[in-house]
């Protein structure tokens, strides 16, 4: 199902030109949940779609076409009144959601993504917060571990609070409401000045295989690895519940999801078997490092670009604790491989730079599976190189 991205977009673009009100018409009378955030939105949308599919047909933009045309195309697919799991780009949410009038908006996290943009995190959270007033019947399903998300969700009339996790804290050092320095401790944060604080969650990600709902602990069996994906599943389950699907049904259905648009997929890269991991910003990197450390240390290939869709400034590499790759066999490729090599040199991690990812994979000694970490456009390129997709869709602006 990969590689349909450009098709998803073109149909929607044409429909919008012919009839700008098409989105509201397509959305009327159906149960919709949207998913937005810097990291995890494609995965969470996929998990949510799986949960909804357990009880009936589902419309979804699983290809990641998450701006208005992609949403139109997803909703235009029959059957007419299917429930919908819709990924929406965080900046487009205020544009798209008023037309969709979703039952639930899932708000995952807001962290630095492309350093070329400025004041982005606070601005996005502010736009989400204002959206609440236009959607009086919508429930905000919100991650309590991100202060920006909590502040945004408080703009809505009703919330379901989910502890979905957020290892990365540097984009919410100050209070989103009053700019005072937040006080933080394990599992809590609070503003000493205005009193904004982490709400008590009703859904809690306890471990990679355990989620608590309303105080009751449940074992879950996901094929997607790591605590980060348990957090995505917790958000998806909370969203599905707003649409009337009980958690047991939702988790059972999510257990069938193996990979998402190539993320976590095991492929042949050159002569090597490789697991593909997307790591497009420091928050995502932190989660992926955690995931690498959950299995035996494999060789690592970092395939790194800094194109427009990645953010042209790769300085954020220095915010990532790459020291944690110490002791592994580390290889680097991509248009900005040199930036990674300098970072690794100061991290005390020797690496080898290669001209392309296939040459890199073939040069790794031993026979283990290798873990490949790639930025957004570099990841797309890997899918193309390994034959997982046949074309690269246009890059988002």
């Amino acid at each position, binding site marked *: 199902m990969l590689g349909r991205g450009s098709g998803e977009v073109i149909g929607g673009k044409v429909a919008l030109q012919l009839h700008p009100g098409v989105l509201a018409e397509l959305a009327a009378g159906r149960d919709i949940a949207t998913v937005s955030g810097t990291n995890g939105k494609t995965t969470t949308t996929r998990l949510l779609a799986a949960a909804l599919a357990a009880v009936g047909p589902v419309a979804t933009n699983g290809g990641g076409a998450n701006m208005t045309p992609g949403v139109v195309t997803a909703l235009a697919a029959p059957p007419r009144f299917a429930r919908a799991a819709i990924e929406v780009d965080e900046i487009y949410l205020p544009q798209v959601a008023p037309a969709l009038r979703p039952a639930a908006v899932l708000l995952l996290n807001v962290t630095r993504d492309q350093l070329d943009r400025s004041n982005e995190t*606070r601005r996005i959270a502010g736009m989400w917060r204002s959206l609440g007033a236009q959607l009086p019947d919508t429930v905000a399903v919100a991650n309590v571990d991100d202060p920006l998300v909590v502040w945004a969700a408080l703009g809505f009339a009703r919330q379901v609070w989910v502890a979905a996790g957020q290892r990365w*804290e540097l984009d919410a*050092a100050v209070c989103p409401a009053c700019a005072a*320095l937040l006080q933080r401790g394990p599992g809590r944060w609070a503003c000493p000045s205005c009193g904004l604080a982490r709400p008590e969650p009703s859904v809690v990600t306890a471990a990679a295989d355990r989620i608590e709902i309303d105080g009751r602990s449940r074992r879950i069996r996901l094929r997607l690895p790591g605590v980060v994906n348990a957090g995505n599943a917790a958000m998806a389950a909370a969203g599905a519940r707003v649409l009337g699907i009980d958690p047991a049904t939702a988790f059972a259905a999510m257990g069938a999801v193996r990979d998402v648009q190539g993320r976590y997929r095991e492929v042949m890269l050159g002569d090597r078997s490789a697991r593909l991991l997307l790591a497009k910003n420091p928050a995502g990197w932190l989660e992926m490092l955690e995931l690498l450390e959950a299995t035996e240390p494999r060789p690592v290939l970092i395939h790194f670009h800094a194109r427009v869709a990645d953010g042209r400034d790769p300085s954020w590499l*220095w915010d990532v604790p790459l020291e944690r790759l110490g002791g592994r066999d580390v290889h680097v490729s991509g248009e900005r491989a040199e930036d990674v090599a300098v970072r690794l*040199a100061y991290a005390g991690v020797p690496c080898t730079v290669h001209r392309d990812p296939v040459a890199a994979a073939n040069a790794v000694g031993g026979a283990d599976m290798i873990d490949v970490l790639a930025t957004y456009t570099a990841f797309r390129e890997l899918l193309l190189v390994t034959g997982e997709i046949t074309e690269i869709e246009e890059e988002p602006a």
Partner: protein
Amino acid sequence: MSATSALRIALIYPELLGTYGDGGNALILQARSDWRGQPAEVVPVPAGQPLPSDCDVYLLGGGEDEPQALAAAGVRSGDLAGAVAGGAVVLAVCAGLQVIGTRFPGTDGHLHDGAGLVDLDTAPGTPRVVGDLVVQPRPETGLPLLYGYENHSGRTTLGEGVCALGGVRRGLGNGAGQRDERGRGYEGVWAPTGRGLVVGSYLHGPVLAQNPHLADLLLEAVCPDLPVADPHDPRLVRADSAAATLRAARARQTRVR
């Protein structure tokens, strides 16, 4: 500083002035000092804490408007000027450069007081400049071209007699219209002060990753009897050959060499 004690590198308010990866400058200075036989430690100064007065190097990085105003209040209440007069070195990048001046604009265009360490002030400007920045450093620094990335909307004017770090070869830099004798726009600030040195710049990257010569200059300014590095130290060889390749790539991409 004495040769026996560890070099102390203060990383000032990383939660507030750490948005653009500038914390990397601390890691780089620490490593390069260490490799030259001078042990060094990074002293993170968390937001809300007063500035220490006993550090040898003070680093201020880039940040967003509201955190920047909060950071400036903290820096103002410390005695950075006293530390510099006593021989400390300051490297202030982007928001940090603005904070060490006299005034800078906040979110609503409202002007905040800086720490007044250097006579420079920053006004709001449009458009925001985002892109490659290449700087020809002033000759007395002995530095080769400085490569990096700029991302700011401030326009910084240097006071009478205050020197720029260099002239802009690509990008905007300070952007307030001041030019050197070759017609190049000013970039950053170069201010030997008392026994110390203040260097400011809009260069991210982080700046010392792409420009290790500047890292060595700062270390030698604070520690004049720093031993010469062993050119065969594999750690140094790895870092400098990677940086040389990176610089060559930047030269190709920006067509400035």
